[in-house]
């Protein structure tokens, strides 16, 4: 992975990530999030996680964010009008976030492995789908099925929630 591409996609991810938070318009936020996810997917692929990268695009960009956009448009959410900003709360939230960032960074700095580069792989273009599948169905079979049940429950819940009250 060339450093140039890494920084390119990292900055893409971060800039659009910031845009998500800063944009007053929900549609613009959602689109920024899509762009951010695309960058993130590229970062995943730079870590030889092709399957995860593609799943990221397929699930997040292709489905989840379309759902977001759909809901935003359906509810006709407009740009946030300027309300009275509670400066104390805003400063507090921002402060907490900064403290969190500093804390994590301190941890990373003191983490020895963080200074090492990634070791090379034996076969760079390995079929990671097959490997993940192996692991998923062998080692993590139970959690996988639990997840399936969870998704089923979520589906039923969503159907129930979005049904209009019969009048």
């Amino acid at each position, binding site marked *: 992975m060339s*450093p140039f591409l890494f920084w390119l996609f990292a900055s893409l*991810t*971060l800039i659009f*990530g*910031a845009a*998500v*938070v800063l944009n007053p318009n*929900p549609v613009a*936020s*959602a689109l920024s*999030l899509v762009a*951010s*996810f695309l960058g*993130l997917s590229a*970062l995943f692929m730079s*870590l030889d*996680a092709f399957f*995860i990268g593609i*799943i*990221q695009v397929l*699930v*997040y960009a292709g489905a989840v964010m379309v*759902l*977001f956009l759909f*809901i935003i448009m359906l*509810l006709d*959410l407009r740009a*946030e009008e300027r*309300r009275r900003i509670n400066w104390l709360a*805003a400063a507090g*939230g*921002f402060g*907490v*976030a900064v403290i*969190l960032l500093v804390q*994590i*960074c301190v941890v*990373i*700095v003191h983490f020895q*492995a*963080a200074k*090492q*580069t*990634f*070791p*090379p*792989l*034996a*076969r760079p273009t390995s079929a*990671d789908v097959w*490997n*993940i599948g192996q*692991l*998923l169905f062998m080692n*993590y079979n139970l959690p996988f099925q639990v*997840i399936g049940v969870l*998704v089923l429950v*979520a589906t039923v819940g969503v159907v129930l*929630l*979005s049904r209009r009250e019969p009048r």
Partner: protein
Amino acid sequence: MITLGDYLVVSAILFTMGFAGVMLRRNLIVILMSLELMLNAANLSLVAFSRFRVGANGLPNYNGQVFVFFVITVAAAEVAVGLALLVALYRARQTTNVEDIRSLKF
């Protein structure tokens, strides 16, 4: 060369952004999006660690990626439920602003 730390820092910044979004934004749907940002920041760390731990067979440690797979699945379910809740809320209150939803607040 790019080190593990670089990925971790990117992940940390992304996580903090999501966190700040959750803290500062007042629109529920944007809060939900910021939440996704945080989850994905965690995913990035997981994948980075997975790639960092190369096993004896010369392959990455796929446990981390399996975990990311789970996270993505759960996140998709979470978004579906979250948005359904949001729509239900909007139907009841005609708003998605958290400041307007204060029935449990003194």
